[in-house]
């Protein structure tokens, strides 16, 4: 096994009586693309929230690069090199697409609290922003307010923002939900490139084609508990996984029958 970037130890959280995540132990390797799979409500997003610090666990610990970050604020974890996207689209509605990405870039460049220099002076920042918008297919819409974008376009913007952040490890929560099928290959490309540039990606995704094409490892979570893990091929044939998550692939049959 390669270097472990993130490790959870018996991490868990309960809301009232409900254990959304229950003693989960995962090790996320550097440089690998790991996909977390599980039925709706399994606790995937909650696990992300625990790792990224949006929620504090009721039990267990999170380690990031060997440091115990369990009680660190999200901000500190981000500064340490963690980045995440959100399942429900979460962009700055009244700012332009460009500004959305530029802000992420600004944060990454760590310009700090400059209160009397003009933001437009940072030319290379603007250039890099344009590049990213081009990558996520939003070049033409850079002057649109984020709220004027269609849902799929907002998902792309969201992706652009985390790319600009260029973190060491990237937690992506269903980045392609609602994206046009035609663009899935582009997204796969983008993610491959990110990965190749040395970023570790952790993905939550329901699109199996994409998952199989990209993942080095799958982790299956059901009912808040770790079920199994392994390489995509093996895991996607696991009968338990089929039952709990994948179903029988009847969709295609249905379609054929009409």
């Amino acid at each position, binding site marked *: 096994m390669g270097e472990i970037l993130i490790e959870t130890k018996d991490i868990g959280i309960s809301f009232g009586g409900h254990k959304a995540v229950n003693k989960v132990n995962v090790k996320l390797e550097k440089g690998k693309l790991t996909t977390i799979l599980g039925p709706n409500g399994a606790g995937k997003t909650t696990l992300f929230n625990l790792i*990224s610090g949006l929620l504090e666990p009721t039990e267990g610990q999170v380690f990031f690069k060997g440091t115990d970050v369990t009680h660190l604020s*999200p*901000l500190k974890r*981000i*500064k340490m090199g963690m*980045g*995440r996207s*959100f399942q429900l689209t*979460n*962009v*700055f*509605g*009244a*700012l332009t697409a460009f*500004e959305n990405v*530029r*802000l*992420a870039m*600004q*944060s*990454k460049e760590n*310009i*700090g*609290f*400059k*209160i*009397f*220099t*003009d*933001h*437009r*002076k*940072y030319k290379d920042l603007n250039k890099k922003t344009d590049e990213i918008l081009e990558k996520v*297919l939003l070049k*033409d*819409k850079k*002057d*649109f307010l984020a709220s*004027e974008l269609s849902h799929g376009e907002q998902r792309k913007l969201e992706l652009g*923002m985390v790319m600009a*952040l260029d973190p060491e490890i990237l937690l992506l929560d269903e980045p392609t939900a609602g994206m046009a099928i035609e663009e899935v290959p582009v997204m796969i490309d983008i993610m491959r490139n990110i990965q190749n540039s040395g970023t570790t990606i952790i993905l939550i995704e329901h699109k199996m084609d994409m998952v199989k094409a990209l993942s080095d490892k799958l982790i299956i979570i059901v009912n808040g508990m770790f079920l199994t893990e392994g390489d995509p091929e093996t895991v996607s044939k696991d009968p338990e996984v089929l039952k709990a998550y994948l179903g029988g692939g009847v969709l295609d049959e249905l379609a054929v029958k009409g």
Partner: protein
Amino acid sequence: MILKKDLSKNMMIFLGLLLAALLILPHVSTLSTTTLFSRIFIMAIYAMSYDILRGYMGFINLGHALFFGSGAYIVGILFNNIGNTFPMFMLAIVITLVYSSVAAFIMGKIVFRSKGGGAASVVAGAMTTLALGEIVRHTAERWRDVTMGADGLSFRIPPIFSDRTMFYYYALVFLIVMTLVLRQFINSPTGRVLMSIRENEQRAEFLGFDTEKYKLIGLQVAGIASGFSGVMFGVLNRFVNTELLTVQQTLNALLMTLVGGTGTLYGAIIGSGFVNIVQSQLLNFRSVHPIFERWLLFFGAMYVIVVIFMPKGFMGLYYSITDKRKAKIKNHAIKQTAEK
């Protein structure tokens, strides 16, 4: 300066003419008009400081008057108790700077404790600041030996300020300088982060911005600007009472920014001009027709009309014209994406 890039040629000419007009104004108008304009300039800064909070940070501060009123008190108390000299004025500026930033820091620490968006938290913030503002007002009211409470503190000012025409120019310079400074602040990286916080604080935090710090800075800058305008207001009026610390005083700022257009900075200047001139005109109309003895009816109607017919204020009207041009380009872009 980037100013050049931002302004079209027509705009530059317009601003040049406006400045020229303002420069000769005192020589062609009555003293009371000159004073009205001094007041407009000073209130414009107060309103701009409010717009930083409201328009750029999305934070409704119902205690904002505490900075403004305190600035006026600081200068008044110094003049009254130590001496009405220019050095005391400078001292007042320094004390106001320190006081405002400390007060803003404390206010921020209390108000920004609870994070998150939603109408409920906007209201919670508004009510917390209202409470803080009221506490300051009550403190001033109780500290009667020094502040004279609601009856007010009248004081003498240094001779250098006593010429109204000269003071008009000071106020104008003050306005121009503060506008440039605040503008620069809005355009700074920090200013941009504030806008992102307004849109979605949680997201800003997950982009790696320490949102609380940024908000504190924003509040401090606004507080200081407001405090400075309070100092100038005190010198203009040579009088200060607890009225300057009331919620009503804060709401005046809100009104001015809304009339001018929130989140536009310059809107506050237009708003200050409009509101102050309307109020003064309505009082002038008393002698025209007795119905204007009930001028408050019209003043109230102005609030309502502005919100209904000019929800984005005067600057909003202006932008909607430029927007139409932009819209064309965007419509084009919609097609282009679709074609790909």
